[in-house]
């Protein structure tokens, strides 16, 4: 594992990984969603609108997982000052942002048929919304701080503080929601997952995981090139000899 710490080895070795991750991820996603969207019988309450679950649930799960991974990378950066941790954070933040945006989007798309309004102050949507703001904060902070060394440390602190806050925000939102204005139908709450839905859902979850890992890895490779542009081993790629 130590070999990967050096930027050059990282760039060369992971070339194959990215390709494989992309391939498996996309195939998995196609299989899972086609199966979920087309072949699964409509759900008793909501009929077809329920199918969005195959997109929404995996995406929402991984949005949070990416943020938690950012916080861990932040911790690693603060403690051991690993260069890779910083590159990972820079690569993973936009991916996390788009995942949360997708989760919110699919949540709304699901909201229209079931509740009649796309935006329903339901606890789960609200906490995903705040997650989106947290990601936005990370991205904005990175652009504002000119000095890269300070930027990474500030980001890792913010990521850690944010990660500590996620469960608290979730709990307080769910509590606040159920207290005042009762929780309308939970996103996927009131439908216990029958076995026939389970398989496509898990394939989708696995494939989204692989795809996200692939995208993040590709981002990291791109960033390693960009950061070490002045180094000698990077020159052949800069002239675009082989990608």
């Amino acid at each position, binding site marked *: 594992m130590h070999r990967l710490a050096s930027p050059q080895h990282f760039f060369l070795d992971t070339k194959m990984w990215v390709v494989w991750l992309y391939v498996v991820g996309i195939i998995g996603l196609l299989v899972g969603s086609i199966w979920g969207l087309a072949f699964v019988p409509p759900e008793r309450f909501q009929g077809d609108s329920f199918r969005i679950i195959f997109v929404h649930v995996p995406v929402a799960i991984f949005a949070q997982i990416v943020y938690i991974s950012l916080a861990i990378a932040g911790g690693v950066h603060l403690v051991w000052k690993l260069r890779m941790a910083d590159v990972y954070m820079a690569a993973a933040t936009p991916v996390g942002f788009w995942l949360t945006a997708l989760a919110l989007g699919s949540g709304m798309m699901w909201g229209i048929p079931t509740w009649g309004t796309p935006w329903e102050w339901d606890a789960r949507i609200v906490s995903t919304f705040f997650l989106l703001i947290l990601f936005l904060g990370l991205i904005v902070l990175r652009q504002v701080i000119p*000095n890269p*060394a300070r930027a990474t*440390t500030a980001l890792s602190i913010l990521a850690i503080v944010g990660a500590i806050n996620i469960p608290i925000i979730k709990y307080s939102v769910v509590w606040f929601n159920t207290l005042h204005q009762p929780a309308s139908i939970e996103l996927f709450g009131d439908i216990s997952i029958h076995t026939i839905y389970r398989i496509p859902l898990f394939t989708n979850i696995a494939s989204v995981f692989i795809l996200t890992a692939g995208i993040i890895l590709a981002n990291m490779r791109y960033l390693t090139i960009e950061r070490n542009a*002045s180094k000698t081993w990077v020159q052949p790629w800069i002239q675009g000899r082989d990608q």
Partner: protein
Amino acid sequence: MTVTDLHCQPGSQELFNGLCLSIVAGEVCELRGPNGCGKSTLLRIMAGLQQPDNGKITRFIEPLGYLGHKFGVSSILTVRENLQWTSTLCGNRLDSHRAREFLEKFQLLSAANKSIQELSAGQKRRCSVICLLIGNYKLWLLDEPFSSLDSSGEELVRELIQDHCRNGGSTVIASHSESRFANANQVELGIS
């Protein structure tokens, strides 16, 4: 204090690589070099304000006296309040007698109760030098100490540095004016 193979690359341009330096008690070390060659960055790194990209700094004596471009005095408070604030910060007592003696030495007695905003740059610099003295640090890191000081001020500061080194302290000065210290060892920071 020892600095071992320091490497710092803030922007794209590499400031220094593999720099080794050790500051010994009772010695003046002068950092020479044109503007923008990283003198103050090196000083900030030695003081611990800035993190080098890699390399290690072992500091034997913890509290360091650092005098940067900005005057280390808060502009709203008066001179006397600043002195009192610095003494509370460093933890050593400052009785009014000693404060008065410092002010007389730096001809700031008249401005003692005026707020720092009204003072001239030279007077502000003297005030920050007094704050440095109050802390009685062993190691001084001075960034252009003579800037905006008149000749009497410069003379005063130089004499302070000399007797500071005589009784065992050490000083690192980053300045581009020509050296005035006999036994100072020079560190040239040219742009390679």
